[in-house]
């Protein structure tokens, strides 16, 4: 029997090995691997056509959005007991109305990536662990090296461009301050960010951006920040696991370190995105059974370990890109050899959720990202910005 699995692009050969192992254990099933990311228009067209691959890799946000419509098969009966393999909040992301519509497969966390070489030059021995230390360290690393009176090396790269990267970066600080994006009020969700904690985090973000980030940060997204880090324009960045091999690919111009995100007033928090393995509605019979067997195999520990083999780069080599999302991966061989990636695994313990309710996506696109951009560029005060967010965000949340 032949089933198709649509996974992420670029993971080709590394994941094929896992599938070969699966096929050895299940001689009656052949798995065809399909590249490309499954979201939006493409995902929906696949499901609507009834010709979708039997197993899909879909982000938790998309699963939540489409599960309510009946796009995926309820896997609760077969996979509810897998809850024990994950941290509670990670498992929570896989649920819609208490039912399992996808099993967590891989994902990413964001941590503090820093340039050890620049840290050594500045005499800084340890990465910052609190907001105060982060600010001080970033200040120390913002220096004028060529003596023209303007800094040309900066402490930390932050996104200021209107877009999703600005939303998750600030979102992390907000969560570290103890703010949340939405709260439930009388059975409806309302914006909760307009709180003293939210304002404090936004002020801190703006202060870091103004004083310790390159002047054109207002037009930078995560990719721009990563380029600055690679080119040693900034000494720290908030980046996912792909941020480390990005430096390797550039020929290791400096030593790169990864530390946990600094703790805010309410502790540590980081952005976590998980991708789930889901079965689209319409798959039945033997194919459904085979799909479940494949999912069961892919979320097992030996298969999860293979995720760190990574994705193919421009040079044909494989580099780590995302991380396995089970909580018991720390003792695996890869992490013994590359402990710097273990920090990303730790991030699973304190996740902050980017899209707490499906409607938040629209609030984020139509209001939130624009307001954050206006605040960091100085055309709105943090207080006024978050007040407007509450007002216009609630209008959108009330509509749906």
């Amino acid at each position, binding site marked *: 029997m032949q089933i198709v699995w649509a996974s992420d692009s670029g993971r080709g050969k590394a994941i094929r090995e896992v599938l070969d192992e699966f096929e050895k254990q299940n001689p009656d099933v052949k798995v065809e691997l399909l590249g490309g990311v499954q979201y*939006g*228009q493409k995902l*929906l067209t696949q*499901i*609507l056509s*009834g010709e979708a691959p039997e197993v899909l890799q879909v982000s938790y946000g998309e699963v939540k*959005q*489409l599960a309510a*419509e*009946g*796009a995926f098969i309820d896997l609760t009966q077969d996979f509810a007991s897998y809850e024990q393999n994950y941290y509670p909040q990670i498992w929570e992301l896989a649920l819609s109305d208490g039912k399992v519509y996808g099993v967590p497969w891989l994902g990413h966390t964001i941590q503090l990536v820093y340039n050890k070489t620049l840290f050594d030059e500045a005499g800084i021995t340890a990465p910052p662990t609190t907001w105060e230390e982060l600010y001080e360290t970033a200040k120390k690393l913002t220096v004028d090296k060529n003596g023209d009176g303007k800094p040309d090396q900066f402490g930390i790269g932050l996104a*200021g*461009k*209107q*877009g999703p990267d600005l939303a998750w970066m600030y979102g992390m600080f907000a969560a570290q301050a103890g703010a949340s994006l939405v709260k439930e009020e009388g059975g409806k969700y309302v914006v909760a960010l307009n709180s003293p904690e939210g304002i404090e985090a936004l002020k801190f973000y703006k202060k870091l951006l103004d004083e310790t980030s*390159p*002047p*054109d940060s*207002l*037009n930078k*997204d995560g990719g721009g920040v990563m380029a600055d880090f690679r080119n040693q324009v900034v000494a720290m960045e908030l980046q996912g696991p792909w941020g480390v091999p990005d430096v390797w690919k550039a020929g290791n111009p400096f030593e790169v370190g990864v530390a946990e995100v600094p703790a805010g007033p309410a502790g540590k928090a980081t952005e976590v995105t998980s991708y789930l393995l889901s079965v689209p*509605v*319409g798959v039945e019979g033997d194919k459904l059974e085979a799909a479940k067997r494949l999912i069961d195999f892919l979320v097992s520990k030996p298969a999860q370990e293979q995720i760190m083999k990574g994705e193919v780069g421009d040079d044909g080599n494989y580099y780590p890109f995302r991380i396995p999302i089970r909580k018991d991966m720390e003792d695996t061989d890869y992490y013994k050899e590359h402990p710097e990636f273990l920090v990303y695994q730790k991030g699973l313990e304190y996740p902050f959720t980017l899209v707490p309710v499906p409607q938040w*996506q*629209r609030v984020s*696109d*139509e209001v939130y*990202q*624009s307001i954050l*951009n*206006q605040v960091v*560029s100085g*055309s709105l005060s943090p207080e006024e910005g978050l007040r407007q967010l509450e007002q*216009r965000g609630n209008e959108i949340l009330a*509509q749906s």
Partner: protein
Amino acid sequence: MRFLQRRFGELSGYVFILPSFVILGLFLVYPVIWSAVASFKDIRPIALRQSGLFEVPGDLIGFRHYVDALNNPLFQKAVVNTLYFSVIFIPVTMFGSVLLAMLVNRKLPAVHFFRSVFFIPYVISVVSASLIFMFLFNGDRGLVNAVLGLFGVSGPNWLASTIWAMPVIAIMSCWKNIGYYMLIYLSGLQNIPKDLYEVANVEGANAFQTFRYVTWPLLGRISLVVSILLMINALNVFQEVYIMTGGGPSDSTVTLPFLIYNRAFRYYEFGSAAAISYLLFVVVVAVTAIQNLYVKRRLG
């Protein structure tokens, strides 16, 4: 049979156009009607799975999507942004392409080479062009600011400025499109009778007068076509925004297609996406009709 022939003419003609009818019907007329119906309905995306070809699932909700769209501040902003874009894009492209067309209409050495060179930007994909312009207009290390710096002017952070981001996108679109419209104008120029220029010459008209009273009026019909095409271009700006600014800073480059895309393919709200599309459609038709009327009156 004879009755049919009397009434409709030679019947074999219909057989010949049948393939085009089927194709246009399936890929043009059908979606147009489908989305018109959809714009009045509240469609759940997965409901499409079970629905038949001529069925639009969902509850009828009247004009609610239209009212919502018109009341959405982002929609209003997008309309203003599109106007801002058009005010720069349409005249610059139009006059730029006329000028270039007149330039390459002369008997110059290697004129064919230059015609090709001017056309090249049109062939480049929007994605590459956007990246090129992002480098050129980079606030810190961009070429434009470096050149301004030579004259002691410190340039703005173009794409991060609510005033400048849209003009940069417009200028890029001009650069990309001028070559194409140059070709259209070139064909127009080559259709203008030479003796008109001879008369103008005999009457002692200078270069500007010749342009003003001979060339430009005789290009009138082409200018109408060009201006309609340009306007449609202007209303469809999407990829540039998606890549260069993501709609920012502070929504200053959000356009209607950007909104439509998000509605349909990020939040799966097909009804409201269709409603915004139809609002856009009404505007296009209205402006085209006005343009048509105006030019007809001018040209008699």
